């Protein structure tokens, strides 16, 4: 045997050992927790045989607390590049079988190295989190590692898509990397995210709460809004990630990949979706499904602030971002959470050259002390900021109600919408007819013999005069009043017209959005 052959065999043997991570016993434990190993996750997510690993032989250099005698293969994280549907991505996966996936200096260096690579090569980065937290034996070096990851998350924001997948614990400081990224994926019974764990809460407060109830997948998908995609299994989660990747471009200088255009397959007639009675609810996603290619709507943050709907679809094979008020939940009002949800999504679309289509049917802002005190002014302003700031093609279709501040906020002409369409059912007014009539005709109503009767008459009068799209159209705030069945064709036309849209903003370091 030549010496090269010997060396090759030695390399292979070495790789087998290192690739086992924490060893068979630790892998058994990982499986018993219902989790895949870090390596299995990467292989399942990426195209077959596309993964190329970096830094397999990295080791820590810690001498304290007996660490000099411990070998941690790969230092508890696997990093590399591969492809999803043929598109290159950078990826890292924390390996819980190696010292609980704890983050030390070299572990962090591997992550920051692959992040730098992603930013330089302008491709998406996917981080799979499964870690007990900072490696305590490494002290402040572990903190430094986190800090350097957060810094890169921030610098890469808006340049390359950043995706976080929570497939195990992600606690304490570790939570801030996902929080800084664009999309966070969680899986039922596996994902756990919190700043302070149940043990500390029990010691300090005496409150007994399970990890799942404190920071499980469902909590982050529905209550906190930290997560964007919720799945029942890791396999389902990987399918969601692949689908997302198919909808978004690889960086902020590119457009998302065009696919073959398909007609909507949605069965219900678009004219029949909205109930004739203005106060009756319906599912606004039906309108979206009736207009997008193949009726394929990929919803983001489905469970959080369900009074607004956001997500991706395609028109003529090209990705669009969709924002729509949901009359079925909380009457489709804007509130703190829904404002936050919509604003962030709009900024993602704008950063990554994705046109935004807005479907509007909203009665105003959510009334209540809790909303006012929670800062609905500050949060609501985020929507105004995000729409005004965006320079991608911006199209609005007013389906029904567009009242007051909500009319302005939902991508109105006044915030720079490129196209304003309204269905004949649109009601564009300073407030709902009942509220307006109560104010305008206060005296007549109060002095009437039968105030209720007069109020009803005045409300009717107001509805006939103002609760329609024609007042706004007469001022040019609405470009066209259209039939519902024309919607898809006109949207396609609008997108076609705005293909070469150019809109510049004054030069600045950055704006100061109302975070």
């Amino acid at each position, binding site marked *: 045997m030549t010496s090269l052959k010997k060396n090759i065999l030695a390399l292979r043997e070495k790789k087998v050992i290192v690739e086992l991570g924490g060893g068979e016993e630790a892998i058994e434990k990982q499986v018993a927790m219902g989790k895949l190993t870090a390596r299995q996750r990467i292989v399942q997510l990426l195209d077959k045989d596309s993964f190329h690993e970096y830094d397999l032989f990295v080791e820590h250099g810690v001498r304290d607390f007996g660490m000099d005698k411990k070998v941690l293969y790969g230092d508890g994280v696997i990093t590399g590049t591969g492809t999803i549907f043929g598109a290159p991505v950078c990826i890292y996966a924390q390996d819980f079988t190696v010292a609980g996936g704890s983050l030390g200096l070299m572990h962090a260096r591997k992550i920051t190295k692959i992040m730098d690579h992603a930013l330089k090569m302008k491709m998406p980065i996917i981080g799979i989190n499964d870690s007990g937290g900072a490696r305590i034996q490494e002290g402040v070096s572990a903190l430094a590692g986190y800090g350097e990851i957060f810094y890169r998350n921030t610098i890469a924001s808006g340049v390359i898509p950043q995706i976080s997948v929570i497939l195990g614990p992600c606690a304490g400081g570790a939570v801030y990397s996902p929080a800084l990224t664009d999309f966070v994926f969680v899986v039922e019974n596996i994902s756990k995210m919190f700043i302070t764990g149940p043990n500390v809460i029990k010691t300090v407060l005496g409150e007994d709460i399970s990890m799942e109830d404190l920071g499980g997948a469902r909590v982050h998908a529905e*209550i906190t809004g930290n997560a964007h995609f919720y799945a029942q299994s890791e396999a389902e989660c990987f399918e969601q990630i692949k689908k997302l990747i198919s909808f978004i471009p690889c960086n902020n200088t590119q457009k998302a990949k065009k696919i073959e255009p398909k007609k909507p397959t949605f069965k219900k007639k678009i004219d029949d979706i909205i109930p004739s009675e203005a*106060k009756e609810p319906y599912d606004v996603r039906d309108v979206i499904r009736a207009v997008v290619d193949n009726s394929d709507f990929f919803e983001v943050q489905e469970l959080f602030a*369900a009074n607004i709907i956001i997500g991706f679809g395609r028109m003529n094979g090209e990705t669009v971002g969709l924002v729509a008020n949901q009359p079925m939940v*909380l009457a489709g009002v804007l509130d703190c959470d829904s404002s936050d949800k919509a604003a962030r999504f709009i900024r993602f679309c704008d950063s990554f050259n994705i046109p935004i289509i807005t479907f509007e049917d909203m009665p*105003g802002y959510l009334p209540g002390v809790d909303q006012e005190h929670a800062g609905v002014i500050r949060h609501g302003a985020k929507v105004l900021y995000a729409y005004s700031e965006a320079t991608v093609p911006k199209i609005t279709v007013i389906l029904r109600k567009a009242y007051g501040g909500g009319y302005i906020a939902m991508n109105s002409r006044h915030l720079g919408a490129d196209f304003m369409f309204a269905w004949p059912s649109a009601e564009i007014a300073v407030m709902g007819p009942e509220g307006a009539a*109560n104010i305008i005709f206060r005296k007549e109503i109060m002095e009437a013999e039968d105030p209720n009767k007069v109020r009803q008459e005045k409300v009717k009068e107001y509805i006939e005069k103002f609760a329609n799209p024609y007042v706004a159209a007469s001022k040019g705030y609405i470009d066209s009043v259209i039939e519902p069945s024309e919607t898809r064709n006109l949207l396609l036309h609008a997108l076609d017209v705005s293909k070469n849209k150019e809109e510049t903003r004054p030069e600045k370091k950055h704006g100061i959005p109302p975070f």
Partner: protein
Amino acid sequence: MDKQNENQNGNQEFVDFIVTARKYKTKLTNKYLARQKWEQFNPGYVKSFLPGTVIKLKVKPKQKVKEGELLMIHDAMKMLNRVVSPITGVVKAIHVTEGQKIPKNFLMIEIEPK
């Protein structure tokens, strides 16, 4: 209705919901249903700003206290916090004992203005 729709809503019934004088039929979210009711601020209520432990009580019921006078020591967030009287008055009630662990916003002492 599909399963996802059922999941995302706190109650499955469409209810009346008023926004600027108009009544809409809609569903409510779990989060909306769990929101906290607003309470009028009472200047004589001494509540905890942080979760923690009562270390030492410095006053007794019916004792007169001046504004700014030390009422108790509250160990929270690795600090021994001095809790002082917000107003001048009489200690009406003490709802904590030394060594007791308390959550945030817990009513610890009531002062009656004098």
